[in-house]
């Protein structure tokens, strides 16, 4: 019994239907939601693996939930600059994968790449014994595969870069670890997600060498009082000691394996 599929007297629904697509993160949350699953002083779990990129002299891959990045170290190789330099140069390049963010990133250099590279450079430059590499350049390339907040990328980038440098066998004063914090009112949360940083009053990123108890970088922006900033710095520094043991573990298991 062939039926006419189209009945003019009725309101016909469409023949096909699709679920509406809700893109997460498009509507910006404005509330400082309670954290699920971890305390405000907890950081996300870290997966760190040195030596994944076989082509490079040294490399590291780090993953903290939704922040994923890979870092490769080349060199020391001859500087291309035309001036004689007594100290080595540390060259850091950061690249976002086009699919690393909610909105597609145009695969060309933009300003954010450089600001990240500058921040990571500040974090690790003072840990490398550059005086041992005259006329040479050490290249560090960081690719961000997935991005969950710039602050997290700065912190994880510094950890990965330091691990990769150790893996490459480049002389350092100490391993650098880094941790970020977001502040809203008097509430401090360590290792914030992108959602948390977007709704916060300000953020603090601290990089330090726990072995020497010295601080290599502090990066604070936003509206925070000096007291709270200092408290953030202390909390981050404490947490950096835990991260240091993660690096130590990954490096020593790497050295025992072969």
């Amino acid at each position: 019994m062939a039926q006419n599929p189209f009945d003019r007297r009725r309101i016909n629904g469409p023949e096909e239907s699709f679920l509406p697509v809700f893109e997460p993160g498009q509507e910006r949350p404005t509330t400082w939601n309670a954290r699920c699953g971890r305390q405000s002083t907890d950081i996300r779990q870290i997966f760190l693996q040195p030596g994944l990129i076989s082509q490079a002299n040294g490399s590291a891959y780090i993953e903290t939930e939704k922040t994923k990045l890979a870092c490769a170290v080349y060199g020391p190789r001859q500087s291309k600059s035309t001036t004689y330099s007594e100290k080595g140069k540390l060259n850091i390049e950061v690249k976002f994968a086009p699919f690393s963010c909610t909105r597609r990133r145009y695969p060309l250099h933009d300003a954010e790449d450089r600001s990240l590279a500058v921040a990571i450079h500040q974090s690790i430059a003072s840990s490398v014994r550059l005086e041992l590499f005259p006329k040479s350049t050490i290249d560090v390339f960081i690719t961000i595969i997935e991005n969950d907040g710039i602050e997290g990328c700065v912190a994880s980038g510094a950890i990965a870069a330091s691990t990769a440098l150790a893996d490459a066998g480049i002389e350092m004063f100490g391993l650098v670890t880094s941790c970020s914090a977001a502040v809203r009112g008097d509430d401090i949360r360590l290792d914030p997600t992108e959602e948390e940083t977007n709704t916060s009053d300000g953020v603090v990123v601290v990089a330090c060498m726990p072995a020497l108890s010295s601080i290599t970088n502090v990066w604070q922006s936003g509206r925070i009082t000096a007291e709270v900033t200092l408290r953030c710095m202390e909390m981050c520094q404490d947490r950096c000691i835990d991260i240091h043991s993660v690096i130590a573990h990954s490096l020593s298991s790497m050295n025992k394996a072969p």
Partner: protein
Amino acid sequence: MTSLSKAEKSYIQSSLLSDPPLRLDGRSLEDYRPIALETGVVPLANGSAKVCIGRPGRGGYVQEAGGVGGGTEVVAGVKLEVAGVGDGEGGGKVACTVSCSPAAYPSLSSNALDDLQSDLTILLESVLSHPSLRPNNLVIVPGKKAWAVKLDAVVFADGGNVVDCLMLACRAALWDTKVPLTKWVEYRAPRRHAAQGDVGMDVDVDEEAGGGFETKGESRATDFELTDYWDEGEVLSGRESWPVCVTLNVLSNIHFLDAKLQEEASVPLRMYVMYAFPRGKPILQTFRLIGPEVSTIDQLRGLIKRAESYARNTWTGLEAKLKDEEARRGVKAREKFYGRLG
């Protein structure tokens, strides 16, 4: 930036570390060079300021070593542009750009100059465009149009301490900015009587009063016009929360302010500390550590506290000067307006 020989470097360092400390131009460690500020220097901008730290140019009675005697000179201008508001944005943003004149850095290659510019731009952008500082009187038509604040700073000469100078100029330019007063304009479409009997569809016609533009409960205002008023407009709201910057130059256990280029090149660690004092309450707006030296938390704790008092001095001085400038220019503008009428 400036290349300094090892001998020169150690000469500067050892004289800074000697007791009492000596500086190239005889200042004490906590002294600034004289700062000159003028607002309203760019007639085409909505707000502008020029700041000089130290003597501009070389025309002084002391010619300094190396022929680089000049101070730092920065001009900042604010232009307001009408911009559309995207979905989910509050409307109104501040965008900063720093351009460095090649004349200020004759020894830098164009690549290095670009890097310097982008570094300064990123620093300023991260301070001034922070959501916590966004002025809330930039909206023209809610949900549709807003003023976009374009802040451009040009470094005409760099005699050291360029970040402090930039921040002073930008703060003064933003303080000086007047947002033109606007009125909404509404369109009201005539009541709709169409859509009856043209197709065989019998749909209820929307009988509500209201224009064809009214969908999704948005405001009816679609355009705006400028009101005629003797003054240029109202000031940016929240202008008392833009911070000032104090750069601390740290050399082992001493620190000093307002370094000249040679001094800048001979310290291993610098800190940019930006404080704002809205209603007298100190707020740390930005803190950055720059340089190949490490620090400790105790050192940072001490220096952040010290920086607060330095910043407060700068803040009070700037605030007083800006009020002076405002009064001076307000009188001038009124005279001009009434003079034209009379």
